[in-house]
C-alpha cells in the first residue's frame, strides 16, 4: 500500500512536470498571447504591397504591442492586399484617421504593422477600415531605383567632364 502510494506520487509529479514544461514551452517560448485572439476588435487595411508580412505578426503603436495580424488576403475588387488586424480591447481609443504602415524590425527582422495615431475626435470601431496606409518597402525595388538613378546620373557627369576638358 505504502509502495503503490509512492509510485502514484512519483508518477503524478512526473506528469505534472511534463505538462508544466509543455505549458512553459507554449506560452513563454512562442509569442502566442492568450486573450487577444478572441477578444478585442478587428480593423481592415488595404496595402499595395505587404512584402513579407505574415499572419500573427505584431501590430504596434509607438513600439507598444497592441494586437496582431489576423489574416492577409488578396482583394480582387481593389487589386490590393487586404490585411485584417485584431486589436486588443484595451486599445479602443485609436483615432479613426490614424495611418497604418508595414515596417521592418531592425535590418533583417520580421515585418510588423505600425499604427500612427491621427488627430480625429472619433475612434475606430469593430470592422472599420484604415484609410491611410503605407506599403512595405521592398528592398530590391529600392536598390534597383537607386542604381537606376545612379546610372542616369553617370552620362551627365561624363559629358560635364568632357566639356571641362
Amino acid at each position: 500500500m505504502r509502495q503503490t502510494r509512492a509510485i502514484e506520487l512519483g508518477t503524478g509529479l512526473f506528469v505534472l512536470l511534463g505538462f508544466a514544461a509543455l505549458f512553459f514551452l507554449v506560452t513563454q517560448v512562442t509569442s502566442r498571447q492568450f486573450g487577444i485572439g478572441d477578444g478585442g476588435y478587428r480593423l481592415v487595411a488595404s496595402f499595395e504591397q505587404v512584402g513579407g508580412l505574415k499572419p500573427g505578426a505584431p501590430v504596434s503603436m509607438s513600439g507598444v504591442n497592441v494586437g496582431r495580424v489576423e489574416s492577409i488576403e488578396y482583394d480582387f475588387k481593389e487589386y490590393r492586399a487586404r490585411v485584417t488586424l485584431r486589436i486588443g480591447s484595451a486599445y479602443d481609443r485609436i483615432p479613426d484617421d490614424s495611418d497604418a504602415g508595414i515596417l521592418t524590425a531592425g535590418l533583417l527582422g520580421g515585418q510588423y504593422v505600425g499604427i500612427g495615431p491621427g488627430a480625429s475626435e472619433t475612434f475606430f470601431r469593430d470592422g472599420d477600415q484604415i484609410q491611410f496606409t503605407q506599403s512595405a518597402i521592398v528592398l530590391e525595388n529600392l536598390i534597383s531605383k537607386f542604381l537606376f538613378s545612379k546610372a542616369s546620373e553617370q552620362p551627365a557627369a561624363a559629358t560635364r567632364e568632357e566639356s571641362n576638358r
Partner: protein
Amino acid sequence: MIAALPRELLASLREALATLGRYAFFLLRLLAATPRGLLRFGLVVQQVHNAGALSLVIIMLSGLFVGMVLGLQGFDLLQRFGSEESLGVAVALGLLKELGPVVTALLFAGRAGTALASELGLMRATDQLAAMEMMAVDPVRRVVLPRFLGSVISMPLLAAIFSLIGLFGAQLIGVQLMGVDAGQFWSQMKGAVELDDVMEGVIKSGVFGVACGLVAVYEGYHSVPTAEGVGRATTRTVVISSVLVLLLDYMLTAVML
C-alpha cells in the same frame, strides 16, 4: 549456389514483410484494446512510473548537456556572422523540432524499451504469460497494453522536459558564459518560434512513443523463451527502435516542414 541466392534473398524479404505484417497486427490489437485498457488506470499509472518517472533523471541530465553543447556550438557558428543574438532562436527550434523528440526517443529506447522487452521476455521464458492464459486472463490486455500505453503517455512529456532543460542549458552557456544579451536571447526566440513548432515536437514525440513502445512490447512478448532469446529480444528492441525513430523522424519532418 548462385541459383539459390535469389531464392534466399526472396525468402528473407518475405520474412521481413511478414514481420512488418505481424507488427501491424499487434499494433491494431493494442489499439483495439486501448479504450478498455485505459479504464484500468492503476496499471497504466504504474507503467507511466516505470517508463517515464524513472527515466526522468537521465532525460534531464542529457537535456542539460545537449542544450549546453548547442549553446556553445551555436554561439561559435553565429558569432562568425555577427548574429549571436539569434542563439535563442537557433537553440529553441533545434531542440523543439529535432533534438528534443529524437534524443529523448533514443534514450527512452535504451532506458525503458530494453527494460520492457527483457521483463516481458522473462515473463515468457518463465511461463508467466502462459499461466495467465490458463487463468483466462488475456496477457496482452493485462500486461502488454499498460506497458505500451505507459510509453505512449510518457514520451511527449519527457521530450517537453528535455527541450525545456536544454533551453536553460543553452541559456546558461550563451548568456551567462558567452555574454549574449539575455533580453535578445528570449525576445528573438519568442518572435521566431511559433506554436506550430512546439506542436511539431509534440506530434513527433507522440509518434516515437508509439514506435518505441510497440517495438519493445512486441519483441519482448514474442521473444524465444530462453536466456539467449531474451537477450536477443533486448538487443533487437534497441536496434529496431533507434532505426525506426530516425526513419520516422525524416518522414515526419518532410511532411510537416
